[in-house]
Structures are given as C-alpha cells and as structure tokens.
C-alpha cells in the first residue's frame, strides 16, 4: 500500500480523541457479549443468580471449564461433528468451485454472465425458504439423521461466494501464461492443472478458509431440522438443547461456548490478513 503524505493525515489532539472515542463505542458494542460471556463463565452459579447484578466476578474461577465436560457429556463429540461437517463441506465446495471459477474467469461463452448471476442468486434462497422440499428430499433418500443431510444442503449456499472470490482471484492471473502453455501444445486440462492451479494456490487457500469458517458459523437450521440424533449434532445444535432447558447452567454453557469458538478465534488470529482481504474481495468494482 502506498504511504500517504504525512501532513494530510496529521490529526489534531481532539480529532484523535474523537476517533478513539468512536472506536471505543463501536468496539464496545461488538465485543460486549464476549466480555460478558467470558465473565459469566468465571462466576459461580450462586453469584450468577443473585441480585443486584455485578459485572466483575467475585472469587471467579475456571471451575465451569472442568465441570462442563461432565454436565454436557456430548461436548467433545459436538465439536468433532462440527469439524466433520465443515471439513466435508469445504472439500465438496472446493471440488465444485475451482473448475467453475476457472471457467468464469477465463472462457467467454454465451450466457456466462447470466449463469454467474444465477449462481450468485442462490444466496437469495438460503435459510428456511427451501426447507420443505429439502426435508422431503432427504426423507425420500432416507438420509435424515445422518451427516450427509447436514452437509449436502449447506454446501449449495457456500458455493456462490466461493465462486465469486476465486473468480476474482483468477482474473488477476496474467492471461499470457495460459496462452503460452496452449501455444506449446498443452491441453486445456493440462494448463489448468499445471499452470493455473499452482499460481492460484494462495487464492484457493483463502477460499478454503472462508468457506470452512462460513460452514462452521452457519450450521444450525439444517442440522436442527434434518437431524434429530444427539450423537451427530454439531456444536450449535448440541448446545441449543442445553440453552432451551428450564434451568440453564449459564456458566457452563458460556464455558462450553468459549471452548467451542476457540478454533475460529485461533484461525482469525493467525490468518486475519488473508481473511480481511478474502472476505471483502469483490467489494469494490475495479
């Protein structure tokens, strides 16, 4: 990024104060639930259910992080399930999207624009709109209450942004490269495999990460509707069962939530540079 001239960016003291105050207000809204959730996980239950409300825990401890494994017996299983579902979804998305993105990035054929638009329009029908026929479809295939039923519908709604992202990335690869390979007598398939894929690897990695995170973050409605077996439930649905109880053990629920989001947090921490550019690619028309 080009370094802007210094003078234009020199702020007066009250401007800096204003900006930091603005950022503080903004981040308070964004992060408050996490801070509160974390403090709740440290509080003993008796303190949690007492008035008046106290923000800072007294004699806080990490006890809930130990006891939850007994009280939420399927917890480890839920996390594994979440990973299985997201991992499988990511693999399927990549298999489908890498060739499709290449086709959109490189080939001019009639109806290309319309088809790309149709792929993007898929996102319009995410959520509950298609739930009824999908439910009947899964039932007639006899796959209700399997991983399959939780993986396959979700994949469709991860495809559009993956195609868009990877297409944007592949369009930046110089056309001369595939033309040179083609002139040397390489087939289209060989060019894709030996020329394009190695260069596009960083882009594919970004797409894989964002897809995995998307799959990990959004697995709820299909898992809730198409699976009723606790042992296959992903983390959100598994914890939802505890959330819905009459007497919620809040400190353990929050502890479980924090352990459950740890993988996502670690990914953010290490890959944030790629994520920001990945998630917002295509934001601006070039």
């Amino acid at each position, binding site marked *: 990024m080009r370094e802007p001239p210094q003078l234009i960016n020199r702020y007066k003291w009250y401007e800096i104060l204003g900006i930091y105050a603005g950022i503080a207000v903004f981040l308070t809204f964004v992060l408050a639930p996490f801070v509160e959730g974390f403090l709740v996980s440290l509080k003993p239950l008796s303190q949690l259910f007492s008035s008046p409300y*106290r923000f800072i825990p007294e004699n806080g401890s990490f006890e809930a992080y130990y006891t939850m494994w007994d009280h939420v017996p399927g917890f480890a299983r839920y996390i594994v399930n979440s990973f299985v579902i997201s991992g499988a979804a990511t693999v399927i998305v990549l298999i489908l999207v890498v060739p499709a993105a290449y086709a959109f990035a490189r*080939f001019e054929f009639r109806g290309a624009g319309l088809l790309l638009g149709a792929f993007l329009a898929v996102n319009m029908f995410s959520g509950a709109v298609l739930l009824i026929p999908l439910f009947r479809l899964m039932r007639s295939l006899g796959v209700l209450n399997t991983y399959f039923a939780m993986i396959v519908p979700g994949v469709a709604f991860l495809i559009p942004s993956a195609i868009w992202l990877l297409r944007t990335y592949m369009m930046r690869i110089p056309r001369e490269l595939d033309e040179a390979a083609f002139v040397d007598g390489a087939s289209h398939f060989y060019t894709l495999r030996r020329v394009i894929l190695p260069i596009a690897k960083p882009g594919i990695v970004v797409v894989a990460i964002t897809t995995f995170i998307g799959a990990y973050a959004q697995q709820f409605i299909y898992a809730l509707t198409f699976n009723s077996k606790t042992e296959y439930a992903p983390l959100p649905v598994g914890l939802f069962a505890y959330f819905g109880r009459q007497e919620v053990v809040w400190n353990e629920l929050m502890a479980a939530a924090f352990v459950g989001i740890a993988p996502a947090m670690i990914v953010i921490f290490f890959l944030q540079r790629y994520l920001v550019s990945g998630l917002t690619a295509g934001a601006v028309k070039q």
Partner: protein
Amino acid sequence: MSVQRNAIIFAWILLLPALLYVTAIVAYPLVDTFILSFTDASLKKTTNWVGWANYEKIFNETFAEVIIRTFVWTFFSVSIKMIIGTFGAAMLNAAVPGRALFRVLTMPPWIVPMAIGIFMWGWMYNGQFGMISGMLQRFGVVDGPIAFLAQGSTAFWATVITDVWIGVPMVTLYMLAAMQAIPQDLYEAAWTDGAGRFYRFRRITLPLLVPSMVTMSMLSLISTFNSFDIIWILTRGGPSGETTTMIIDTYKTAIGSNKYGEGAARAVLICIFLSIFCLCYFRVTSRLSGGDKR
C-alpha cells in the same frame, strides 16, 4: 473455429458439476416448493391438489400482520446495520495507531458460530440476572428488572439488536474496503484547496460510497429477510407471535405442524418478495452506473 469450440466445451465441462449440484439442491426444491404450495401435502400418504386454497388461507389468517412485522423488522435491522457499520468503517479508516488490531477485533460476531453469539445475547437479555437489565437498574434508568424477551415490544427490539450485532462486522469491513478504494489523490487535491477533514468526508467519501452502500444494503436486506437462527433461538417467534417473521411462520407451519402445503405457499411469498428486492436493486445499480451491464 474448432479451437474456439473446444474451449467452450471445456468451459461447460468445468461448470457442469457445480451447475448440477445447485440444480439439485436449489433449483429443483424451488420448483418443488412452488408445486407443493398448491397441494395439501402433509404427513399423510395422499396429497391432493387444492388450487389457490393455501394462499387464500394465508390471507384470511393473521398473515398480513406477519408480513408487515417482517418488513418493519428488516427495515430497522438493515438501517441500523448500515449506520453503525459505516460509522465503524469511517473510524477504522482513520490513520491512527492500533487500527490493524481494531479491524481484527470487529470480526468475532461474524466468524463465531452464530448460535453461540445468540446464546450470549440470550443471557444478557435475562430479566432477573442479565447484564442489560442489571446495568439499567444500577444506573437508575429503570426501577425493576425488565425481561426483554418476555414482552412483545422489547423482544422485537432485542431480536433486531442481536441481528444488527451479527451483521455489523460484514458491513463494516465491506465499507472499509470501499473507502480504501477511493483514490487518495482526490483527498490530496481537496486538502491542497484547504478542505477540512469533515468536509472531505462529506463531499468525497460519502458520495463515492453510494454504490457500495446500495450493494451492501441489498446483500444485508436478503440475509436479514431470511434471518432465522436469531429469532428461533431467542424467542421462537414469541411471546404470543410478536417476533414471528415470515421465515419463522413458514418454519412453524411446515416443520412444526407438518403442513407442507401451507408452508410452501408462505415460502413462495418470501421468494416473490426477494425477487422484487433484486429487481429493484438491478434497476438502481444500472441507473447508478449509467447503464453499465454488471
């Protein structure tokens, strides 16, 4: 000519797997929804053609109320998301120390499993012991505890705020990317002419952001209109239906009571509304970009 033709065939072969997948999981169910909406499909073995009966039933019931509520809910959620997100982007766009860290800190609500963020809000809304009610009492804003999710009017706003919270990171990062794509020269030229920071923001940044704002509002309109997890986890559409949006109503009818036909009719209405939004969007963007076809 044949080289050209080979290339086109190859492109279609590349596209075919994704195309077939989306056809099976999205296009076919879409058609099936439409067909089902004219039947009395349920758990029964037999399914009969009932014509427009499901649609008539919808409009005889309280569905008009549900439609209006959905629009109000969506309108407020999208507007607040856009305002907070653009504000956050403007703040994070400032060249102050620590901004890289602040940008990362905006992401968690988006990246954490949605349901888990919602659980946290569920506790914060708790009347007896929750944070928001507790804080309000401590600062003397209210006298007694407020159970936000137990009363219709507060539950409505509670679900809106949670939806805003989940949507804000995406809006913020998107608007930030849009702001950073504005050529620096414009600011420098204005600065040379003596334009102040606020003036530059108002006369350069905001006008150039309009296309991105329209696109982002549209994307967030679609996802908000389809929003299910938040309301289902927090209130399940209650209390007494006060947070029941079209999606929730469709789910309750179809999956809750196994009335697939009636549920499908509701889903078709949702699709019609979504299509209208998209048409409006294409109208507006083609006008904004002066007839450019993209």
